[in-house]
């Protein structure tokens, strides 16, 4: 078990080191997220009083779009530069390869959100967040499920000519619970208006997260290049 966890961490660290050298993916993803905030203002001409109404949806759209592009890109680079081959030879269970990749993408997205959230709060003229804990819980749970499924599907679509277009097409329909739940929880956290449904959303996201971390870990082997 300990050796397995060490393998997962080592694999994640390998990706983190490569990313630290260039900072390409994190820069592109973060700036794309911020661009969505600007586009939202252009598209809906949002006044400060309505900021809270648009904030949760805009934030999630930004996270999902930017994250998808980021993961597709990172998977594509792995494919083109053959970075997947080394780890594929490692004497560890194949699920460790998935979990390492997943962990790297998760940390990357949480970093991006760390930059995006303050900017979004300012851009949508919020006076802070009523329930910060709930806000963070919703964001982390939603991101976890998103990144877990995204890691599986990005890895699998990386060999495709149409990677950039195919990933969102296959990923977004499956992400319906994350999109709905994420927006519902963030809305409750921003307004402080917690209902019994908020708890149900949190549990639903948790079920989604656990399920779509475990199932891809089992199936990841099938989508690796053999």
């Amino acid at each position, binding site marked *: 078990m300990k050796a397995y966890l060490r393998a997962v961490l080592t694999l994640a660290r390998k990706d983190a080191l490569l990313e630290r050298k260039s900072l390409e993916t994190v820069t592109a993803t973060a700036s794309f997220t911020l661009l969505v905030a600007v586009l939202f203002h252009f598209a809906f001409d949002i006044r400060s009083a309505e900021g809270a109404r648009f904030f949760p949806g805009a934030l999630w759209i930004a996270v999902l779009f930017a994250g998808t592009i980021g993961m597709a890109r990172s998977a594509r680079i792995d494919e083109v530069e053959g970075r997947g081959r080394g780890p594929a030879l490692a004497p560890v269970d194949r699920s460790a390869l998935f979990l390492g990749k997943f962990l790297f993408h998760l940390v990357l997205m949480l970093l991006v959100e760390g930059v995006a959230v303050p900017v979004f709060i300012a851009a949508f003229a919020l006076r802070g967040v009523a329930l910060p804990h709930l806000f963070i819980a919703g964001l982390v749970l939603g991101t976890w499920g998103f990144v877990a499924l995204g890691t599986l*599907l990005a890895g*699998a679509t990386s060999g495709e000519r*149409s990677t950039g277009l195919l990933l969102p097409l*296959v990923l977004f329909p*499956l992400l319906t619970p994350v999109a709905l*739940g994420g927006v519902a929880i963030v809305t409750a956290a921003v307004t402080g208006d917690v209902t019994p449904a908020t708890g149900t959303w949190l549990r639903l996201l948790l079920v989604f997260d656990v399920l779509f971390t475990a199932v891809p870990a089992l199936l990841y082997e099938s989508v690796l290049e053999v």
Partner: protein
Amino acid sequence: MIRAMIGAQKALSIGTVLLIPASLYMVFVYAPNEATMGVVQRIFYYHVATAWNGYLFIGLVALMSLIYLIRREDTWNRAARSAAELGVLFITLTLIAGSLWARPVWNVWWTWDPRLVTTLILWFFYVAYLLIQAGAGESQRQKRFAAVFGIVGVIDIPLVHYSVVLWRSIHPNVVRPGNPGMPPEMLITMIVSVIAFTVLGLYLWSRRLEVESLSQRVEALKAKVLPL
């Protein structure tokens, strides 16, 4: 199993020829007119039947995908792809029939009711699946990816449905356990339509499987004659 499906083709074709006219008769003549919706309500019998087939074939996609991942024989991949094609067909028909019904009854072509949203998501899922298959060509890896996607999709559909129900809930919930909510003539008509469409769906699938099995044979023969 696939061979059995192809073998059952004759029985399925006879069943289709008998059941489809029977269901047409029941839908248009036997079933009474609904009190408030009138004749438009008769769309319901086909709407339910095609929707049921949509869910049946997604189940078949997942089952065939799972067998493909275990056995790695192309036959199962082809069976899954054929099932997905029929799934797209039936879900598209469900959406169109539902929309035709909703216009006079709900006064809109489309609403964001949970069942409609789930069905729409299911349609997107099938289209994405076929896109993966279309791009797969001879790549074993892409075929395995399609299979993984098929399985993950089926696991996801209940969560998608539950989440859209939680999100909002005006679709008439006609069939509840213990209370069919309609007169027996309507219920019988619905059941006959569902059975007729199931047999039709399976018949189409068996034809499709036969075509795939023939094309596999042709490819094998070509490989023998033209060794490249």
